[in-house]
C-alpha cells in the first residue's frame, strides 16, 4: 500500500515536472515585453555614447570633475576676498570704536584689528564680553556682504603729544597769542625787537666823536665809558 502511494506521488510529481508549456507562450511573452519596453532614458543614451573603455570613461569623468572644481575655486577666490582688518574691526565692535576713539588711540600698539580679548582696550573688551552673540554674528557669513560694501575712510590716527598741545593752545590762547603763531608776524616782531635793541644800545654820534677826540689826546688811556665800548664791540 505504501509503495502504491509512493508511486502515485511520484507520478503526480512527474506530471507536474513534465507539464508542457502552452504553445506560443514564449512569443506572447516576447510581445508583451516589447509592448512594455521603455524608451531609453537620456542618461542611457549618454552612457551609450560614451567610450566603451572603462579607463577612458574614468579619465573623462575625472577631467570633467577636476575642471569643475578648479573653476569653482577660481571664482570663489576672485569674488570673495578676505575682509580687511579695519572692516573686521568695524563689524566686530563698531560701537566701542565710535564711543572711545581716543582710548583706542592712546593705547598705542593695540591695533583696532586685534581680536584677542587681552589685546582689546577697555571699550572693545566690554563690547565683546557684553554679548558673545555679537562676536558670533561678526564671525558669521554676514561679514561677506560687508566685504562687498564700498570702502570707508580709515579711522583717525592717534595725535602726537605736540599736536595735542597745539589743540590745547588753540582752545585756550588769546587772539593776540594766536596771531603770534603766524610766521610773518613772528618775523616782524623779531625785527622790531632787534631794531629796538639796536636803537637802545647803539652809541650816539656825539659819543663817537667824543671817543675819537680822547683817543687823539690819550692813545693808551681807558675809555671814559667802558660799558658802552664793550657793548659796542
Amino acid at each position, binding site marked *: 500500500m505504501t509503495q502504491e*502511494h509512493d508511486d502515485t506521488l511520484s507520478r503526480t*510529481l512527474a*506530471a*507536474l*515536472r513534465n507539464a508542457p508549456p*502552452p504553445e506560443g*507562450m*514564449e512569443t506572447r511573452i516576447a510581445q508583451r*515585453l516589447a509592448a512594455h519596453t521603455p524608451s531609453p532614458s537620456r542618461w542611457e543614451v549618454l552612457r551609450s555614447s560614451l567610450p566603451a573603455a572603462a579607463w577612458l570613461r574614468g579619465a573623462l569623468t575625472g577631467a570633467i570633475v577636476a575642471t569643475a572644481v578648479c573653476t569653482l575655486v577660481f571664482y570663489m577666490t576672485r569674488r570673495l576676498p578676505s575682509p580687511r582688518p579695519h572692516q573686521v574691526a568695524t563689524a566686530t565692535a563698531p560701537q566701542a570704536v565710535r564711543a572711545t576713539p581716543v582710548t583706542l588711540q592712546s593705547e598705542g600698539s593695540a591695533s583696532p584689528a586685534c581680536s584677542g580679548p587681552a589685546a582689546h582696550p577697555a571699550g572693545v573688551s566690554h563690547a565683546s564680553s557684553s554679548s558673545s552673540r555679537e562676536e558670533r554674528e561678526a564671525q558669521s557669513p554676514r561679514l561677506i556682504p560687508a566685504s562687498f560694501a564700498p570702502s570707508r575712510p580709515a579711522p583717525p590716527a592717534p595725535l602726537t603729544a605736540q599736536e595735542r598741545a597745539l589743540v590745547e593752545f588753540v582752545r585756550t590762547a588769546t587772539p593776540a597769542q594766536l596771531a603770534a603763531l603766524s610766521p610773518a608776524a613772528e618775523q616782524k616782531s623779531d625785527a622790531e625787537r632787534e631794531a629796538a635793541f639796536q636803537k637802545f644800545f647803539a652809541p650816539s654820534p656825539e659819543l663817537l666823536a667824543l671817543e675819537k677826540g680822547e683817543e687823539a689826546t690819550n692813545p693808551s688811556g681807558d675809555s671814559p665809558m667802558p660799558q658802552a665800548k664793550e657793548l659796542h664791540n
Partner: protein
Amino acid sequence: MAAIGEQSLQWFAAERVAVDKPAEPDLPALVGEHSALLYRVALSVVRNPAEAEDIVQDAFLRVLQRRQELAAIVEVRAWLVRIVWNLALDRRRRIRPEQMDEAFAAALLSSTMPADEVLSESRRMAQVLAAIEHLPTKERQALLLSAMDELSTAEIAAVLGKSESGIRSLLFRARVHLRERLGKGDRR
C-alpha cells in the same frame, strides 16, 4: 506585489560575488531558456495553465523593469524562480486550486495516457494533490520545488531561504506526512 520582486532582488544582490561584472544578459534569451521551467513552477502552485502563463509574463516584466541590475545577479535561474514563486503564492490567495484538482490532473494525464485510464488515474492524482495541499507550508513548498528536476537542492534552499540540510529534512518529513495522510484516506 510590487515588494516581492524587490525583496528577491535585494536578497540575491546581497549574495552576489565580487567578480568582474558580466555583460547584461539578453532578455529574449532568458525567456527562451527559462520560461518552461518558470511555467511549471507557477503551475505547481496555482494549478491553472492560464494563470501560470500570466505569472511568467509578469515575472519577465519585472525583470525588464530591473534589467540594469540583472548583470549583478549571479544565480539568474534561482532568482527568476524566486520571483515566479512569490508571484504564484500571491496569486494563489485569490484562487482556490483545490477546486480544480481533478480537471487539472486529467489535463496533465491526457497527453500521456489513454482516455479510459485517465479518469481513474486523475482521481488518484487529485487525492495526492489534496494531500499535498494539507501539508505544512514549508514542506509543501519544498516538495513542489523538488518536483522540478532542473532545480538542485541548493537552488531550492536559495528560493525558500533555508539551508540545504533543512530542505532535505523538509522533503523527508513531507513524504512521511503524505504517506500517513494517503493511508488514512484509504482506511476511510
